[in-house]
């Protein structure tokens, strides 16, 4: 029997939807599951956490994310609750926190997993930007896995048993790496790495101002807005919007590529999308070989039509 720990990520108190993937994976293992939440009150989350053994609530005067504090607290939780495996989301915070935890807890980590076999402590993750898949095994010690959002099927549980709630205190030691502020972007953007729908633009957008039509389409679909490297390098879009090898790796259920030729370096950043749609003027563009559906045409005509059509069917 192995004790499975889950780091449940809350974003300003909101339960991230990818946590449900972690819970689905852990519940399926049949092992005792312990979920760790840094929050002043666990009540709002208990409905989501039904059927697991323990909820470990981390309490403290200031629970704002500070990597050193969180990592040391989790390392102490691993010891106290004898956790053999801990899983988290491969999110911006997960990428920062889990390697720190690995070092502090003398554990081993595999990031960005597409599948995890908890019984055998094995995981499959993309390597070479997704050109290959690697299967890793962690033989001894505590095993840590972060899981790419949108890869594990979420299953609703029929369990009704409420977990036992235990509390631990936040580590209040020295901060070496100190977050002094968080600057939010002016517009409420949807996080690309966890988005279910993404609309992306390439060099054929021809200018920064033209991204407005993609933004309109994304808004109708409640999706995120991305860009190819060519568009970012031409300064049509900001670096945080870049999808691809040197940008973000995304995994939505629908990816709409507009005016993107489909260079390998872009493709590896979005190839695991469930459905890829391409809109491009050039019928020879490589993106059509990789897309599930394509329309050959001028994006400045097609995109507004798409927006209207989606609006119609979604209303």
């Amino acid at each position: 029997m192995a004790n499975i720990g889950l780091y449940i990520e809350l974003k300003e108190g909101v339960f991230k939807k990818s946590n449900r993937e972690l819970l689905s994976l852990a519940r399926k293992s049949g092992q005792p599951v312990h979920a760790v939440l840094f929050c002043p009150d666990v009540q709002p989350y208990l409905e989501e956490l039904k059927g697991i053994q323990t909820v470990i609530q981390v309490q403290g005067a200031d629970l704002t994310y500070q990597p050193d504090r969180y990592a040391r607290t989790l390392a102490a939780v691993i010891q106290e609750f004898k956790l053999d495996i801990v899983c988290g989301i491969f999110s911006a915070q997960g990428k920062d926190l889990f390697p720190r935890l690995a070092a502090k807890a003398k554990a081993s980590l595999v990031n960005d997993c597409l599948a995890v076999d908890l019984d055998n402590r094995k995981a499959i993750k993309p390597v070479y930007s997704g050109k290959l898949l690697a299967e890793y095994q962690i033989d001894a010690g505590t095993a840590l896995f972060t899981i790419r959002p949108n890869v594990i099927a979420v299953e609703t549980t029929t369990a009704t048993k409420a977990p036992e709630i235990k509390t631990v205190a936040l580590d209040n030691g020295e901060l070496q790496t100190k977050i002094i502020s968080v600057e939010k972007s002016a517009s409420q953007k949807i996080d690309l790495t966890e988005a279910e729908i993404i609309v992306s633009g390439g060099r054929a957008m021809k200018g920064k101002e033209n991204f407005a039509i993609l933004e309109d389409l994304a808004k109708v679909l409640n999706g995120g807005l991305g860009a190819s490297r060519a568009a970012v390098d031409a300064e049509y879009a900001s670096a945080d919007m870049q999808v691809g090898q040197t940008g973000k790796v995304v995994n939505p259920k629908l990816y709409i590529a507009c005016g993107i030729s489909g260079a390998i370096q872009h493709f590896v950043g979005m190839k695991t999308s469930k459905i890829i749609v391409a809109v491009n003027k050039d019928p020879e563009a490589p993106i059509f070989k990789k897309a599930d559906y394509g329309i050959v045409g001028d994006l400045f005509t097609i995109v507004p039509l798409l927006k209207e059509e989606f609006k119609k069917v979604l209303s």
Partner: protein
Amino acid sequence: MNIYACIKQVPDTEASILIKDGKSINEAAIKWIVSPHDEYAIEEALKLKEKILGSTLTAVCLGPERVQNALRTALAMGADRAVHVESSVALDSQNTARALAQVIRADKEFGVIFMGKQAIDDDAYQLHILLAEELAIPVATNVMAFSFDGGKVRVEREIDEGAREVIEMAVPCVVAAAKGLNTPRYASMMGIMKAKKIEIKKTPLAETGVDEAQNKVRLLKLSAPAEKPQGRVISGEAADAVCELVRLLREEAKVI
């Protein structure tokens, strides 16, 4: 300040990657490059070196003999020294961190250590943090803005939705670079000529006390992901094609 840039040599972004024996790749036709995020690291390190008079930049790379080319690239861009940690075996991130920490500690008193947030071969996303923890110094990852003032490092790192965390750290520290931090310079002809004359310091892996047998994350096998079947192009007038596409997304693909 003794500034460091830890870099990795990886296959070119355009390279096709073929599996050799289930656990390694066929290196025969591969063109090797400095991992793109490490180029941002080198550039930022050079900018810091130019800001603090009397600084030196040392590039460090672990790997087989071929990685000396990556070090030559760093030297040609403007690094002063290069250290090659000679290893022909594949180490996991923890062991790589231990080896690099040993080498850097033994080399000189270190200031800021720059590296990429990930290498685009194993995409492990952890070496920079493990190295910092090994050296017991602070670290920030996914850094898109860097400044050094009054003995302190201040960085901005991207978190979700384009929001940025502002982080302060004392020196020494590790800074892991992401795209957006800077535009890496090209090596000048003079830089390339100069780089050829600099002797690369070599440290055999054995001297670090780290070996492959200590790997805790074990690679079982490599496989090629399933290829997507060829999709279809929807023809017809723009308005009709759009209607058909939306219908297919709803009824066939069931994604909206």
